[in-house]
């Protein structure tokens, strides 16, 4: 499922292209920079250069608003300080200007003030905003600027203007919205269902990884990847409001699908029957309050299926009265209330423990690891209030995420790193594995559709491997 996009988990901006609409990148800005550098280095008195290294932001940043807002601030400064702003191919913004003292404030020079402003602006995006900024006085030490410019001189002519790609903020067209409506109403949901196994990791590092891993739950969701949507449609889904509307429409169909699958003891829910591995599903509050949920939950309870229902944390916060009602319904069904997805910024804004969830889905990112000591202690306090046994670290693609989680006492994980570990174990025991790659095995195990599993001659193993060891315990 690591290639797939669960509609609900498409974090804002993830689907967005990095360009910035209406913000043409000046082709050949590097050449202009080189020319200016030559002149300015010849007469460096009072000349300063401020570089905003947006290229150093981790993907999917820089987002279009980073560029748009930063450029306005830099142009403002350029106007006041007789300067010029250049946007380079690598998305760095370069301000070359005079270092004269600000006429309005008579304090620090304008670019130095701007440097402080930009550092404050990016404090939520990077742990150390100073790393994004270079401020060079050319009459004091021109060497760093010279080195910076020389890094661009050998570059090939720029290719396609990335800024022309669709990006955030473009109003969704009627066409793309119509496509979304059609998908919500008619897409072949059975083929779009995906799964990912969440794992419990034994903290004893002396044991081999395979012995330390036990499946803890199975997340079911919808992936739009098989539909090969046009960029304009995925772009529309980067709007969180359209995403919520769209997800709520899909939820009704997901509930029907689960209901029918439970009744038929189908592949989606069979591993969970009679106390098997719990299932996690993301649903909107409206869906949980619908008759469709009541029907599905009655069947699930009767069949001994344990479920965790993940509610979007944003909706939970703004609909607290509904959340209380939902909590009662889930209690009645014996299901767990899960809140997610949380990232570093959401952790700062929400007192998660106050919402008393049974589990919380925290999305791993480099930001969590690189955060300042203050921010780290803030995260640690927030996580401790929630309780480490309630946290699932998801989106873990590498050992770094595992190590970060384990160091904090987190024992449940979800992500590509574990998908690969399971696929490797499956392939070791599969007689037909010679014909497959690890990546194919991961992708096929993630898919619940027939087309998504095509090519596997041992499909039973795809499911059986993911439930090896059983579930057990509170999920």
């Amino acid at each position: 499922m690591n290639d797939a996009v669960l509609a609900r988990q498409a974090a804002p901006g993830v689907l967005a292209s990095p360009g910035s609409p209406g913000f043409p990148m000046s082709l050949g800005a590097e050449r202009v920079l080189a020319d200016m550098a030559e002149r300015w280095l010849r007469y460096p008195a009072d000349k300063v250069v401020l570089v905003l290294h947006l290229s150093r932001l981790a993907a999917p940043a820089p987002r279009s608003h980073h560029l748009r807002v930063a450029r306005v601030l830099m142009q403002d400064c350029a106007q006041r300080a007789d300067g010029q702003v250049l946007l380079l191919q690598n998305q760095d913004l370069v301000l070359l200007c005079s270092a004269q003292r600000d006429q309005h404030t008579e304090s620090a020079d304008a670019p130095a003030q701007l440097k402080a402003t930009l550092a404050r602006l990016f404090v939520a995006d990077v742990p150390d905003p100073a790393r994004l900024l270079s401020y060079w006085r050319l009459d004091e030490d021109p060497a760093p600027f010279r080195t910076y410019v020389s890094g661009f001189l050998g570059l090939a002519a720029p290719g396609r203007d990335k800024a022309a790609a669709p990006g955030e903020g473009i109003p969704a067209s009627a066409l793309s919205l119509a496509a979304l409506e059609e998908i919500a109403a008619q897409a072949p949901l059975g083929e779009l269902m995906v799964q990912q196994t969440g794992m419990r990791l034994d903290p004893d590092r002396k044991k081999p990884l395979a012995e330390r891993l036990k499946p803890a739950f199975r997340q079911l969701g919808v992936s739009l990847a098989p539909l090969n949507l046009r960029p304009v449609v995925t772009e529309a889904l980067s709007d969180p409001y359209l995403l919520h509307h769209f997800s709520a429409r899909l939820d009704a169909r997901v509930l029907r699908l689960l209901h029918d699958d439970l009744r038929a003891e189908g592949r989606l829910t069979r591993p969970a029957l009679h106390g098997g591995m719990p299932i996690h599903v993301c649903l909107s509050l409206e869906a949980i309050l619908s008759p469709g949920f009541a029907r599905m939950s009655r069947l699930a309870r009767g069949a001994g299926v344990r479920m965790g229902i993940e509610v979007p944390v944003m909706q939970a916060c703004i609909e607290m009265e509904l959340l209380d009602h939902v909590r009662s319904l889930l209690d009645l069904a014996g299901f767990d209330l899960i809140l997610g997805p949380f990232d570093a910024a959401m952790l700062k804004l929400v007192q998660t423990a106050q919402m008393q969830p049974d589990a919380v889905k925290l999305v791993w990112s480099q930001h969590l690891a690189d955060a300042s000591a203050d921010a780290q202690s803030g995260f640690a306090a927030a996580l401790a209030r929630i309780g480490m046994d309630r946290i699932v670290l998801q989106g873990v693609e590498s050992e770094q995420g595992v190590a970060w989680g384990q160091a904090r006492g987190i024992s449940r994980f979800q992500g590509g790193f574990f998908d690969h570990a399971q696929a490797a174990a499956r392939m070791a025991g599969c007689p037909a594995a010679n014909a497959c790659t690890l990546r194919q095995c991961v992708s096929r195990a993630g898919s619940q559709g027939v087309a998504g599993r095509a090519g596997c001659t041992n499909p039973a193993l795809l499911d059986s491997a993911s439930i090896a060891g059983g579930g057990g315990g509170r999920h």
Partner: protein
Amino acid sequence: MLRQSELSGASRRALLLHIDRLPPALAKPHHLRLAREALNSLADADRAQFFELSRGRIAIVWRSRGGDELTHAMEALGHLISGQPEGEAPTLGELVSLFDLPHQAVWLLDELADEAPSHPPSPTTPLDVQQLAGLEAALAQADLAQFARWRTVMRLKPAGPPMAPLARIETEPVWEERYFAVHALGASLTPDRGLKADPWLFRRLTRTLDRRMLAMLSVPKDIQGIGTLAIGVNVATILGAEFLRFDDALPVNLRGEVILNIRPADMLSDPGAFLFARNFVRSRHYRLALVGVTLPMLQVLDLAGSGFDYIQTKLAQDITTRPDALTTLMPGGTELVATGLDRASDVRWAISHGITLGRGRALTR
């Protein structure tokens, strides 16, 4: 009808059911249905007339004392709120007001004077996304001046004892809030659809309205002479080209005098973008208000250090019954703005609890 009763001296009895005083936990659809059914017995009373009022309130007027019918209705309503912990539900006396007409007509009229300006209810059929796209395109071109409104946030200054008449409470306009009348807009552009019926699509639509408001306020003559100003904006709007143009055109005298109203859903829909936008507007000397906040939201949002100058909340029953909770939950360095101060008693309550900024019909009469 009340005035006729006053003039003719005809004896009537009136019951006003304050459904809006039910706490959220008791205001689910089935509770509201039960509350309405509780009044059915009064339908048998002599010349009973039912009136649907705003905020879900219901008035019934009938002739004679309404003995058994009234008793049955009161019992059923009492049953609805029974079993609730003290303080978490209104008492029967708070839920129901009874009036003997005509000599208590003036009291009932006073209650009715607090009604919102009446407009027909919005359709409940939501927009679909294609209609939304069409509406966005139409709104981008339409002349929206006729739908532009303003309302004033006042500073409340008690000038006498807590129970002083409203006339003795000094108020002073502090800022003007500009907005579009969504109800009128919907009635004009999509009369058969409720703009707010799908909250997600409505939130999306507000971005288009934001852009139009910013465009209107970027015309120098339109903002000449105004003082502090508040506008509702989405985070995406702040980070968009229109806001940057607005910021560029903002007269020097308004720098630091513009309050940006942000809603919790928007803050939480993209927290990373919100934090970036917050840092940007603070650097440009805008003030920030988090609006539409409820007491349960305050309990789960961590607003300390979030950069808001104001938290705006509607005076609701859960707040008036637990004023201490409000005080405890307010983050330091922020001022509370109470909205919905529609009755003199609301204003007095706000003042007696140290609230000094407010908005509502009682302040603008």
